[in-house]
């Protein structure tokens, strides 16, 4: 029973998902919105409930499969917030007409549950299952607009590359199991050093990293990201950019620091290389981009790189930086996708030209997109600045031991500068792009979206001006991971 209580948050989300699925059968279409709000409200309750958990150290459930600590809670709250925004977004936009709102909602909730499980995975089996729960539901979510070829195409691409990465992941798990005879994180962590030297184990860990790298959209496993971001419905893309990426990071951090701690130093160079390549690739490819969603796809690759810098330092400061960065990134990306969703709805396009004159058609949307871009560009006082600040600080600190970080810093700085070029390109299109022949009537934003957008903007600003609370939480989380 205690086990179930510890797992209560995920359980509640799953039950909500099932309830939505069932209720959807009985209610009339006009009530569907209410269903969505109900789900959101439930998530809100669950979010509040998450503060009732006060883990003293790490608590385990289900024979050590499931771990609950501050680290897991940090991410669960993160995912819950992401989930609430995504549901708001999907309720506010009407793409659900095609498939059925109920299904979309419940699938999102299942994906959310998967992510929350990821945060607590303490066993390779749970890692695999929770990750697959996320991935498989996302196959459907990406392809949800199945009459739109782009959505379908994105789904198929995501499916094939995702399955490929799953195969590597599974094989990696097999190899780790082969080398050590266990799937349990605690047992893995307490293995004698001799076993840790095994090349098979290292190979397995690398394969595992392939699977996680796919989730994070880090180079060289980034190839799917632009196409899928572009093709998927905006709410899905937002969830993909925030939740799915964070799921990859939460698992990576846990595997790095709690599961195979002796291998940490081996990871170092690998992570540094991947981080540098991700930043460079994402930033460079984004320069000529004209489609906003695709641009965010590339930007997501670059941001994975920045996050990986934090992770690669293998220090508490770095991990804290990554955690804070993710929090800022969450609101920033959500704000961007809320705007994109509305613009898509009204113009059917998401290229820069469709943004022209946006500041007249809807000052709110223009402001929201500006907030998002400025924050992504890492400019104070918004959240993106403090995130980059912390990441750079952590990298510099790590540079004392590993001079390679100085190179990484160089790439990061140049990356930021280049990224300004296209982020400001977006702002420019919003404020002084010349509108074409499209009707320039004002865009009415539905109130759920308005609320969501306002909340996201406030959060972006708040995180930037008052980062103290989040950094404190992140520090607690990192401490529970065993990092000092």
């Amino acid at each position, binding site marked *: 029973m205690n086990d179930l209580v510890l797992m209560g948050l995920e359980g509640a989300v799953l039950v909500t998902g099932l309830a939505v699925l069932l209720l959807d059968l009985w209610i009339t279409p006009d009530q569907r919105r209410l269903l969505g709000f109900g789900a959101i409200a439930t998530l809100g309750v669950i979010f509040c409930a998450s503060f009732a958990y006060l883990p003293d150290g790490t608590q385990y459930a289900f024979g050590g499969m499931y771990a609950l600590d501050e680290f897991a809670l940090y991410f669960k709250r993160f995912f819950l917030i992401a989930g609430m925004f995504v549901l708001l977004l999907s309720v506010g936009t009407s793409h659900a007409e095609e498939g059925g709102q109920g299904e979309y909602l419940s699938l999102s909730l299942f994906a959310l549950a998967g992510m929350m499980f990821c945060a607590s995975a303490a066993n390779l089996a749970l890692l695999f299952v929770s990750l697959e729960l996320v991935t498989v539901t996302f196959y459907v979510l990406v392809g949800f607009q199945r009459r739109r070829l782009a959505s379908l195409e994105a789904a198929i691409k995501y499916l094939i590359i995702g399955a490929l990465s799953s195969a590597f992941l599974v094989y990696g798990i097999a190899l780790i199991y082969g080398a050590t005879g266990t799937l349990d994180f605690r047992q893995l962590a307490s293995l004698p050093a001799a076993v840790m030297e095994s090349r098979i184990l290292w190979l397995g860990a690398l394969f595992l990293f392939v699977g996680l790298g796919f989730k994070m959209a880090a180079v060289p496993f980034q190839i799917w990201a632009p196409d899928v971001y572009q093709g998927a419905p905006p709410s899905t893309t937002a969830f993909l950019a925030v939740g799915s990426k964070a799921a990859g990071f939460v698992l990576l951090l846990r595997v790095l620091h709690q599961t195979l701690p002796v291998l940490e130093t081996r990871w170092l160079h690998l992570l540094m290389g991947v981080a540098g390549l991700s930043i460079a690739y994402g930033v460079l490819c984004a320069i000529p981009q004209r489609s906003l969603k695709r641009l965010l796809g590339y930007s997501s690759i670059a941001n994975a790189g920045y996050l990986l810098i934090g992770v690669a330092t293998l220090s508490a400061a770095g991990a804290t930086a990554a955690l804070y960065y993710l929090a800022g990134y969450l609101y920033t990306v959500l704000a961007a996708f809320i705007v994109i969703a509305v613009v898509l709805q009204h113009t059917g396009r998401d290229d820069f030209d469709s943004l022209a004159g946006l500041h007249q058609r809807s*000052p709110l949307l223009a402001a929201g997109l500006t907030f998002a871009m*400025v924050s992504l560009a890492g*400019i*104070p*006082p918004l959240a993106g*600045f403090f995130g980059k*600040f912390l990441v*750079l*600080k952590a990298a*510099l*600190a790590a540079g*004392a031991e590993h001079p390679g970080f100085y190179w990484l*810093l160089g790439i990061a*700085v*140049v990356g*930021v*500068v*280049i990224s*300004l*070029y296209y982020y*400001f390109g977006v*702002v*420019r299109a919003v*404020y*002084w792009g010349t509108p074409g022949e499209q009707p320039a009537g004002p865009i009415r934003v539905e109130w759920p979206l308005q609320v969501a957008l306002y909340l996201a903007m406030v959060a972006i600003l708040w995180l930037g001006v008052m*980062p*103290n609370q989040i*950094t*404190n939480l992140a*520090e607690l989380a990192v401490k529970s991971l065993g990092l000092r």
Partner: protein
Amino acid sequence: MASLSFIIFCPLLAALLIAAIPRNFKVLFRLIALGATFLPALAAVRLFLGMEPASGRLQYEEFVPWVYSLGISYHVGVDGLNIGLILMGAIVGFAAACISREITDREKEFYLLLLLMTGGILGAFASYDLFFFYFFHELALVPTFIMIGVWGRGDRKNYATFKITLYLSLGALLSLIGLLALYLQAGGQTFNIVELTRRLSANPLSPGAQQAIFPLLMFGFGILVSLWPFHTWAPLGYAAAPTATAMMHAGVIKKFGLYGLLRVAVPLLPAGAESWLPVLALLCLGNLVYCGLVAMRQRDFNLLLGNSSVAHMGFVFLGIASLSLVGVTGAVLVMVAHGFLAALSFALSGYLHQRLGTLEMVQMGGLLKRLPFIGTVLAMALLAGCGLPGFANFPGEALVLFGAVKAGQWWVILAAWSGLVIGGVYMLRAIRQILHGHLPERWAGVPDAPHAWHKLPYALLLAGLVVFGCFPGLLTKRIQPNASRIVQAVNGPMLAGFPGEPEAAGYWLARGRKVTGHE
């Protein structure tokens, strides 16, 4: 009223207020902006007069911990080094708001950004915390880009926007890395400059670390100040910028890099300064001579001003690089003087551009006849720009030259040549082409500034130049104690630091702990 936080947050909160007002109330935006810049200017004057001049102590301090775990706190105060800049910045901010009458399009956003700029840069000057120091500067910097992009002029507007954005961001990031490195090397516990100064003067960093960090700061800040050869953004950017933006950036925001060198880089990294400042002293010749020569060739008045502003920065670099009391004091004086001067010149060129529609100097001529007020002020500004006594630039530049000779830098000869002769050539050429000579038919109806209200910003800025030109002692006696400490941190036996503070190490941390109740 005269608290520092009021000076900083009055414009920032006014910006929020403007954001909240619907865009129909056009008059209101301007009124709010005027009020929210006038009050800080007034307060800054009071602060300037009210501070204890010759002690070099930190005054009007305010301290609020912010992110305790990282050692970040909101800590503002004034001493001799920044009081001049704060005064100048506040006055220029007000003048820029006055001058922005020409903006008739999207006033709401314009004034909002202008206020952000003003508040941000004043905050940067007042901050004694590295984080806020940087944070506030970025807050002021970004509106520059947007303003150039939206309200800029000329067909090269877009190119200029991107160029200035990329350059300045690169500079800011480099300096950020440098600041972070400094913070980490000093133990990673506090961003507080006072505390850092104390720690580092007791326990200096290893020379290797200093020599590695100093260039980051030097080039980072240098790019922000258009250090040769990273200067090409400046003339282009200013030529494309709307008047108020050019005034604020060239006059005030640009000084941040110089201030950073003096406040952070040199006193905290004395060994680094010792080995890198000679490089700076050589590069500043690029500003002084090369950019001066380039300015001689410009046909567009704004490009001329832009290049001359770059050239003037060379004096400040030279003064800092001289590492002598006289030179450093002169450098600070030039910073303040150039702030007034650059703001004034760009305000005037903005007036000309608005009335004539062009700034091609060959098309002008004889305008003094039509514009007795503007023309006279312009002539005075240009003469001030070539270092005429009576205006604040002269004592500053002279002190820099004296200081540089004392430091044994023979190239001061070239600097003097640049200041006296090359500067004279292009400034007089401008007067000759714009104000003197025959008045072309097409400008026969150009109106002068009609009444006192229009004349106010120009008069205010000119007054700044003249007051500090005639009584530079007002500033130098405030600067001296601090400049002296900076110089002695590098050369002498005395430890850098702030006089009159409790000497116990960790005082600031303890203070922070007390306030937060944090363990």
